[in-house]
């Protein structure tokens, strides 16, 4: 069940540009969501979207080599590493929490990447770098979506409003879906980067909508409504754009009409 081909993926946007968008955009969104009044917690969601797009691109690059196992596994390890790094960073970092999480995620990712290549012997040249990127993206996605729900990344608030009531499990799955699903859904010989990344935006927007619903518990209906609205607008835009890209990449799109009725067949 190897996924993808064997070799590097064709890219239109270079990895470093996407990495910059994901890391800078993710951190900026998280800090804006933290410092602005609760009604603006959707900035955390925007940060999470940047991070999820970055994660999806990193998954795309590493999974193009063929992992020997499913693409979903790499998305799940992203969130596994991400949740450990995110909670640790917020617990010790104070105001620098997201940055500490980000650095710790990089360290855990590097360790696992080196182990995968050196001990297990996967032999993927970009494995170490990709693992660092995936762990960082998973961490920022988790913190960003937590900011949407809690309105802040303060450890005590995140633990009380996101972890203790179980919303963190929700974030875990929808964040993971955003990172692992785009490449898994688009992989094949005709996979293109812009289409995969647009699907990542669309999935991330769904994550913002869902966390927006969850935020009504602590931030009130006004803030929750704004979160959901922002998520829905981005989702509608990304979905239309994705559909356009699917039509562009398809050989041809034809309407087949409905199945003929019994009379028409005679």
């Amino acid at each position, binding site marked *: *069940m190897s996924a993808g081909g064997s070799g590097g993926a064709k890219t239109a946007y270079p990895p470093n540009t996407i990495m910059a968008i994901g890391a800078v955009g993710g951190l900026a969104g998280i800090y804006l969501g933290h410092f602005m009044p609760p009604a603006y917690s959707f900035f955390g969601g925007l940060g999470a979207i940047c991070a999820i797009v970055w994660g999806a691109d990193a998954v795309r690059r590493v999974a193009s080599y063929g992992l020997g*196992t*499913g693409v979903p596994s790499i998305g799940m390890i992203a969130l*596994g*590493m991400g949740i450990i790094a995110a909670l*640790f960073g917020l617990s010790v970092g104070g105001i620098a929490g997201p940055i500490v999480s980000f650095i710790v995620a990089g360290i855990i990712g590097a*360790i696992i990447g080196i182990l995968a290549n050196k001990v297990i012997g996967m032999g993927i040249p970009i494995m170490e770098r990709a693992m660092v990127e995936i762990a960082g993206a998973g961490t920022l996605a988790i913190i960003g979506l937590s900011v949407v729900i809690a309105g802040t990344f303060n*450890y005590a608030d995140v633990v*009380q409003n996101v972890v203790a009531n179980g919303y*963190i499990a929700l974030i875990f799955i929808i964040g993971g879906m955003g990172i692992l699903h785009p490449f898994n859904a688009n992989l094949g010989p005709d996979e293109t980067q812009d289409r995969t990344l647009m699907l990542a935006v669309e999935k991330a927007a769904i994550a913002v909508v869902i966390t927006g619903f969850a935020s009504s518990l602590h931030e009130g209906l006004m803030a929750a409504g704004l979160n959901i609205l922002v998520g829905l607008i981005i989702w509608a835009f990304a979905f239309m754009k994705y559909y356009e890209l699917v039509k562009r990449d398809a050989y041809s799109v034809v309407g087949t009409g409905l199945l003929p009725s019994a009379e028409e067949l005679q």
Partner: protein
Amino acid sequence: MIEGLMANILPMVFIVIGGVLISWSVHFVPVGGAPAAMAQATGIGTGTVQLAAGAGLTGLVSAGFMMNVTTNLPLILSSGAVGAMIMMSVTMIVGSWVYAYGVGCVPASAKVKVDPITKYRQDIYVSQGTEGHGLPTVCFVSGVIGAALGGIGGALVYYALIEVGISAGLSAGAAASVTGNELVGIAAMFAIGIFFVNAVIPSYNIGGTIEGFHDPKWKKWPKAVISSFIATIFCAIVAVIAILQLGGI
């Protein structure tokens, strides 16, 4: 921070042992992936991570349930093991029904000529062009062993994290409200994070399908266990510090 880590050295050892057990357990579970879903390989038709996560999380839930009534470690571990074993057995028996009565093929593996447990010959039953199909007896037994190890591993990690929290002055008992038990939430999330890390590392080691302990790939387990051992040490340090910080709030 360092004193906190030194004071909790035993729970950290438990976490690392748990991580290693999870990593080892994955090698026992018969995973067929997409080919198995199309009855072209033996095993359960999904990925390693999903199965290991399913077994581990069931183990975690059943261990957590037992921790409501007792702090006896052997009881908690066996509860976790039994929960995971039930989950995996049910998955495999229903999978076998689907193969036998839905797809219409007998459980047989092309990798070994004779089933190591029943000694039945199976190569004559393998459909042409496939690597086998269904879940032969040895796969089933191997999967149950794997689930037990995974359940014990998951329960051990969760128990250790709860112990760290209790030593930091937090309470883990049944809370008055449904929501609001910080320690249980955070310990469960760290256990799940450690579980996923340790379920993915061996799945890269296996690379695709594995039939259980009679599969040639099974001999590769030390590599994954060493990798998991190193990775879990870091995860354990990070998790213990985060929980100790929770006690300081």
